């Protein structure tokens, strides 16, 4: 009875190992054809390690008299995979973050030799394709904050000791087909806890602790259809994003529905401020 159980478990583990290897083959095919990579470059070795572990345990369950050579080869391969995984950390810095609702994965990779930073668009969680090269190289720590389930704000310090900011968006607040500009959609006065945002034809002004600053439209950069970054002398200062309850109407005369968030661009830990429409 126990022998039968071992046999079944052994075969299942062997099939798991084969399935993981098929996943690797799928990766190579997708990489060659669509420039697909793993969301985190180390995942390749993790999959291999799991595959070898399943193989190792499966074989010991299926074949009692397994030669030491076979086990030795598997153990050696396992060690090589672990070594390569650790070594990958010296080549690539993988910055990943999963959205609060687990539907999206933010992925940025930094080539530690060239300093190049690339934003990846993820597919099925574990696969990703390079989408955009970020303009500045990273020095030091980075910060990822999800402003909504589909908006990730990425803040990092650049090599010239300035702060840069990138917003990854994964959704839409209209019909998912047509493009719209965030600035005009939030036209009006928005109020939060001690802050006020006014969007009008001149630009967007932010009033914090009774001090107001106007950011003209030429200093405002939109990301996707969900967020805008307000810049002073080309340095990002604020990010305004559309909350999930915000509805973009086709008819601009309809009243605004939903909230927006105001997020200060800083390396310090901070939370976005939710604002409601005032007038």
């Amino acid at each position, binding site marked *: 009875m126990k022998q039968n159980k071992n046999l079944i478990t052994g075969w299942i583990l*062997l099939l798991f*190992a*084969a399935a993981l*290897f098929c996943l*690797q*083959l799928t990766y*190579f095919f997708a*990489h060659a054809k669509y*420039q697909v*990579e793993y969301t985190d*470059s180390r995942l*390749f070795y993790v999959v*291999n390690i799991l*595959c*070898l572990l399943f*193989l190792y345990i499966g*074989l010991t369950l*299926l*074949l009692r008299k397994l030669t030491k050579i*076979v086990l030795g*080869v*598997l153990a050696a*391969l396992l060690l*090589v*995979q672990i070594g*390569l995984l650790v070594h*990958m950390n010296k*080549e*690539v810095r993988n910055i990943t973050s999963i959205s609060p609702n687990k539907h999206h994965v933010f992925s940025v*990779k*930094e*080539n530690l030799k*060239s300093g*190049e930073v*690339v934003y990846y668009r993820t597919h099925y969680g574990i696969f990703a*394709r*390079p*989408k*955009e*090269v970020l303009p500045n190289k990273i020095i030091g720590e980075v910060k990822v904050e999800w402003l909504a389930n589909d908006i990730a704000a990425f803040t990092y310090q650049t090599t010239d000791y300035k702060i840069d900011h990138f917003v990854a968006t994964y959704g839409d607040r209209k019909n998912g087909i047509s493009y719209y500009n965030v600035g005009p959609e939030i036209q009006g006065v928005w109020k939060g806890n001690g802050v006020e945002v006014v969007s009008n034809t001149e630009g967007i002004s932010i009033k914090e602790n009774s001090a107001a600053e106007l950011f003209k439209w030429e200093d405002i950069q939109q990301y996707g259809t969900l967020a805008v970054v307000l810049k002073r002398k080309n340095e990002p200062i604020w990010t305004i994003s559309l909350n999930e309850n915000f509805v973009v109407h086709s008819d601009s005369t309809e009243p605004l529905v939903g909230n927006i968030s105001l997020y200060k661009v800083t390396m310090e830990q901070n939370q976005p401020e939710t604002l409601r429409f005032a007038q």
Partner: protein
Amino acid sequence: MKKWILSLSGGLVIGIIISTIMYENQTHVAVPQSNLPKVEQENAQQNQTNGLRPVTYEQISYSLQNEELNITYNKGEDWVRVPIEKDSLFVGEYNGSKDELIPGSYIFSDARVGFIYGTDSILFKFSRDHGVTWQEGVISKNFPYVRYRKVDFLNDQFGYAVLTGDRTMSQEFSAVFLTHDGGITWDETTTPPSTRIIADGGFIDENTGFMSYGTINPDKPDLYVTQDGGQTWHASVIEIPEQYDLIFVQAELPIREEDHLSLLINQGSNGDYAGGKVKGKFISKDNGLTWSFAMEVQPNEAE
């Protein structure tokens, strides 16, 4: 059974070894290529560092991406930034795309690249060393709301610029400028006595130049010639055969052919004779003063 299990395991182990070697040889931080056609992908690969794409597939080309003007001498492999504000390239009356330069407003050759730009003054900035150093000449100070702009060089030193501006309906002011020092100083010549909208203009040697007018429903070509470097202009006499009357109506810039000059006259934008693209070829043996009909030219021959 044991044989099967070992074969499967052996296959997996070999597969893992090969795939690991392949993965190690891959680039782990790739540059986006998006779903561009293959030729553009190749160019995108070439421009990994800045993402610039040449507007044309010529050896010397340019890009107006990122709100700046960059030029390339090797189809996009390397780029040189031109120290000109993008908007100043489209100064005056211009409603076209700002993703491409205004035709005629620039020259690209291995020996020289140059651009007409400006604000109130119209300037010409050029480089003779592949963008390492740049020189600038003022073509015209306080030119009124420039519309048409064209610059060309016939040799290393001699070049011309044709500008028009201050347009009201179908009338505008036109001016011709010449340089004899490669583009640093420019002198305005006299201009023909016409205020019609310009069709084309230019010089074919240091003394002989032409100005062709009439783009809005022209009924006959309106061509002027100078044979003394722009000091005096004369209306060219074009003998149009009766059957081509009201058909060949807009003169292009003549060219020199052996011992005579050759002029193509097209049908304007509304022409419908033989498809509207056929042009009339005219010959002048007195350096542009009088022209006589030679033949019809099919569009592919005329190009």
